[in-house]
């Protein structure tokens, strides 16, 4: 945790690390585990899928569940009904009510479907879930999700898997300014500086997957992401200097030796 910072609180869940990472797209369970460890995260996303009856080994056997909280997602759901069903299955399997709600509009854009997301959020909250809701970077929609009871709102930085960074930093800042629940930038992060930028905007957390998993060296990139969130968060807490158009000397202009 950064000196002077507080824990990130989402419902009854508390985290020292503000970095959330996904567990998809890795070459092996071993690589995934090494990347998760190198990132320092305390919370990873997982997807709910049919048991593969022919497959040996399970993802969860490769995670230190004493230290890491699982955040089941509803990836692959395009309706509120499917998302709610998926969350209930996840809760039954894990006995844990924290979920990442993600209802997408279509397979091409992978952008959030706002009406279905909102409907699912309301139903899940009424059913006792702690909902972290994935959404676009629309400040109004973020507010609607908060009003619907979301415990955290997760605006995208850029489309899922794009690695384009924070496309609309002003929108992210406005979302944060109006929110009273944690804001976690989710999706679009391509490299370490994107994570720092997000935290410098004041957000409470960042969730990423492809930015680590698709790096040439995922474990090294996971380590870079840990530096990046800490650097960005510390910079935000430190309060940056006001930018200015004119130069300003850093060394005294008095006491110079005689010029020749």
């Amino acid at each position, binding site marked *: 945790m950064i000196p002077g910072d507080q824990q990130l609180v989402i419902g009854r869940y508390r985290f020292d690390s503000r970095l959330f990472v996904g567990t998809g797209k890795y070459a092996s369970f071993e690589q995934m585990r090494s990347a998760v460890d190198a990132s320092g995260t305390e919370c990873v996303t*997982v997807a709910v899928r049919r*048991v593969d009856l022919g497959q040996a080994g399970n993802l969860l056997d490769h995670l230190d569940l004493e230290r890491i909280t699982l955040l089941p997602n509803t990836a692959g759901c395009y309706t509120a009904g499917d998302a709610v069903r998926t969350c209930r299955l996840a809760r039954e399997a894990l006995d844990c009510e924290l979920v990442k709600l993600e209802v997408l509009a279509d397979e091409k854009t992978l952008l959030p479907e706002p009406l279905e997301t909102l409907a699912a959020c309301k139903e899940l909250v009424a059913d006792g879930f702690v909902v972290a809701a994935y959404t676009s970077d629309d400040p109004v929609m973020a507010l609607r999700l908060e009003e619907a009871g979301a415990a955290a709102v997760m605006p995208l930085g850029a489309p899922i898997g794009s690695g384009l960074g924070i496309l609309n930093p002003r929108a992210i800042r406005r979302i944060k300014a109006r929110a009273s629940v944690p804001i976690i930038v989710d999706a679009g992060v391509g490299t370490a500086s994107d994570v720092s930028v997000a935290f410098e905007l004041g957000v409470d957390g960042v969730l990423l997957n492809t930015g680590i998993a698709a790096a040439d060296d995922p474990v090294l990139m996971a380590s870079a992401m840990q530096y990046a969130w800490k650097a960005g968060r510390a910079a935000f807490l430190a309060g940056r200097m006001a930018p200015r158009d004119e130069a300003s000397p850093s060394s005294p202009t008095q006491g110079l030796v005689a010029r020749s």
Partner: protein
Amino acid sequence: MHPDAGELQITVNGESRRVPAGTTVAGLVSTLGLGAGRFAVEIDARIVPRSQHAERHLADGEVLEIVTFVGGG
């Protein structure tokens, strides 16, 4: 052959299966080698809580979904 003996036709994760009559959810799960892992079972789109797996008998034609967790973002 015992008159109660027989088989049930069920569907598990989209695949048709035959199991002995009288098979419970717990029995099926054990046969599938899932043991004590983290998974959830639905029958005909309704969750069967883990506490009921031992006594819940399967019926002919039922459709089961058994899910677990995989890597995802």
